[in-house]
């Protein structure tokens, strides 16, 4: 099954790594035609995120790139060449959305900033995803997901009672993940607006602002009284809400709501303080503890470890991950339209895979014009 809800829209994708490339992937999954544009001097860094593969075409082997850029077309176009920039603007003239997460100022330097794009297509939507936003004193500061966890206020709320703030690090980089969800929604809202106003828009999305937005209740509380101290809540109030170690050394998350408290007391044969639950949990293996707690209406899940993540029942997460055309694991679509899961994921583009089709079919270039551009190095299939 493939989705076609937003088919007919064309997205020119300058998005890289997670924040940008994952946003356009979501739009591709929903049915948009996404054309990823890389340059011979600047590949998506995900093409070598774990180091270069040993094959001669190392740029086509990266698991991270394949996982994120499936369901897209891809061209390799030298935007620094006049002819490349001209080709790009011709693509923009026929597109609906341009998406980018380059460093601040790069679009202007390449001569493809919003003013330029909107001159060739007044209905174009430009979505710029950046760390800090496109204005303000820190607009040009380079940041990564975990820098933004720190500066957004999120890290301060993620700590042991006796410990210091924490970041999720390279393993997760939370702001990078959530910004693609927000940006995809914002682009769809802009397409809604354009459907009615016939006007394009420049969307300036700040990852740092989004991360602060996602602790908005803490900002409201702390701004009012500095009451956000000690252990910050995780979820709604509960009688017990924490992780416990079991006899087989697994961590199990347990949330006993007030509605489940009585049955939980009967199960544990004790009052529900953390210490009593801890003793009960420590005396049995995780699977048994979880089974018993669930039978009493208690929320209980084993904390899956990162190195065991592949052992998770694939049926449970079939919408989150999928097998790509070449069998590699790729990201899925985290929502379902209709009754069926999205299951069709075309392979991520090898560098410049769709150069010819783009030039001939989309732009109407002749074979000789295309060959000339290849000869000039404007269209390529390998990095410089």
């Amino acid at each position, binding site marked *: 099954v493939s989705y076609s809800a937003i088919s007919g829209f064309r997205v020119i994708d300058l998005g890289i790594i997670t924040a940008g490339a994952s946003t356009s992937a979501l739009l591709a999954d929903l049915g948009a035609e996404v054309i990823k544009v890389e340059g011979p001097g600047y590949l998506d860094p995900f093409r070598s995120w774990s180091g270069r593969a040993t094959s001669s075409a190392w740029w086509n082997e990266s698991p991270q790139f394949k996982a994120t850029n499936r369901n897209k077309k891809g061209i390799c176009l030298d935007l620094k060449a006049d002819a490349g920039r001209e080709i790009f603007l011709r693509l923009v003239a026929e597109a609906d959305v341009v998406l980018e997460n380059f460093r601040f100022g790069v679009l202007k330097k390449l001569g493809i900033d919003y003013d330029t794009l909107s001159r060739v297509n007044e209905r174009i939507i430009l979505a710029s995803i950046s760390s800090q936003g496109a204005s303000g004193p820190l607009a040009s500061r380079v940041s990564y997901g975990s820098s933004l966890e720190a500066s957004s206020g999120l890290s301060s709320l993620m700590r042991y009672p006796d410990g210091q703030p924490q970041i999720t690090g390279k393993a997760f980089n939370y702001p990078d993940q959530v910004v693609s969800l927000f940006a995809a929604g914002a682009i769809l809202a802009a397409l809604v607006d354009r459907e009615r106003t016939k006007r394009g828009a420049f969307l300036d999305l700040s990852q740092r602002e989004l991360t602060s937005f996602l602790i908005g209740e803490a900002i409201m509380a702390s701004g009012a009284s500095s009451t956000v101290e000690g252990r910050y809540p995780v979820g709604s109030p509960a009688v017990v809400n924490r992780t416990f170690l079991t006899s087989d050394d697994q961590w199990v998350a347990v949330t006993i709501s007030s509605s489940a408290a009585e049955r939980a007391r009967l199960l544990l044969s004790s009052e529900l303080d953390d210490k009593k639950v801890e003793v009960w949990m420590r005396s049995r293996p995780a699977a048994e503890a979880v089974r018993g707690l669930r039978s009493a209406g208690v929320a209980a899940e084993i*904390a899956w470890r990162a190195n065991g993540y592949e052992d998770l029942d694939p049926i449970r997460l079939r919408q989150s991950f999928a097998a790509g055309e070449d069998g590699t694991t790729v990201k899925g679509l985290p929502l379902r339209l209709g009754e069926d899961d999205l299951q069709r994921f075309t392979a991520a583009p090898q560098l410049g895979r769709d150069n010819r089709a783009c030039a001939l079919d989309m732009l109407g270039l002749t074979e000789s014009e295309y060959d000339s551009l290849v000869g000039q190095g404007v269209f390529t299939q390998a990095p410089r």
Partner: protein
Amino acid sequence: MNRAGVRAPHRPLAGLKVSERFGPKSTDVGRTTVSLAGLLALLFGADVVRAQDPSTDPMKNWSPSLPDGSSATFTYLAACKTFRPEPYPAAPCTFLLTDDETCLEGWPRQRVVLVTPALDLPVERPQSELTLMAAAGLLDIVGEQGRPPLSLPGYQVGYTAGLAAFISLMTMFLVELRGGAQEPATVGALDVLAWTNWKNRLANVSGHRETGIARKEEWFVARCVDGYVAVIYLDRNMPALAELVGSPRLSDDVFQTIEGRVANIRELKTIISKALSWRTRADVLRDADRLGLPFSSVLDPRDVPSDPQHVARRFIVADRDLLRPRLPLLWDGLPLATFGGAP
């Protein structure tokens, strides 16, 4: 202008009507998910009603609290919306956000974004923010070995799922405006969370075998005399890092590659931590900025409103006598909606 004083210079979603509705089978994660998606719709200019008597809204008891003892979470997510007993009736440009199938009566399913704890787990299996993070592998990312794992703070599970629910809502609305065939949308919080945790899923094939809480993570938080900074860097930043901490040792070959740094992670962190421990955050960040290091100050939420970047972009706005973040986006250079003006 609505009850909360929301002014919207431009309302991209004007004309869209969204109802939030909860029922006996609603869950707390579902309430959060629906509330966040509805908040986004409101801030983009839709009319949003919460079909509920506000006095019975369980969210009013959720932490953290405002000085008057009321819930900051309820105020943030719900108080800005219009409460009324019944949702908008099903009609064109009108959609329902709910997490309880018993609320669907009278609604064509293709006008509903239905939220569930997980797409493919039995609905009777209870879930919470914490247990869903466990099931999605998010409780093996932050923490110290031997201690209980740390979780993302607050309501991140519901918020993350709410972002996906908003995508669903926008997709359905766009399809309707274009006269396409509408389809029902379903969002599972576990599935969204697992999707965000894709790097761990790929760890075994991507070469990033350092996973889990016990991993040797290069990036960390270091203490300064007046707070903390996040120590973030890439390979190319190593000469700058060596200069910042004044350590010739960090210029050695062994620290120029991630493999070398990970193999000597304790020494690396000790060198950096010692060098930063006697300096102020401002002092460290000034040098980091000069050297092109992507360090960052660790801010407390109470420091966020006065941050110069946020002030310049008017990110924090007044909502009556409180401060709150605006929609985290500028549209043609302007905020879409404000809550009564700048603080």
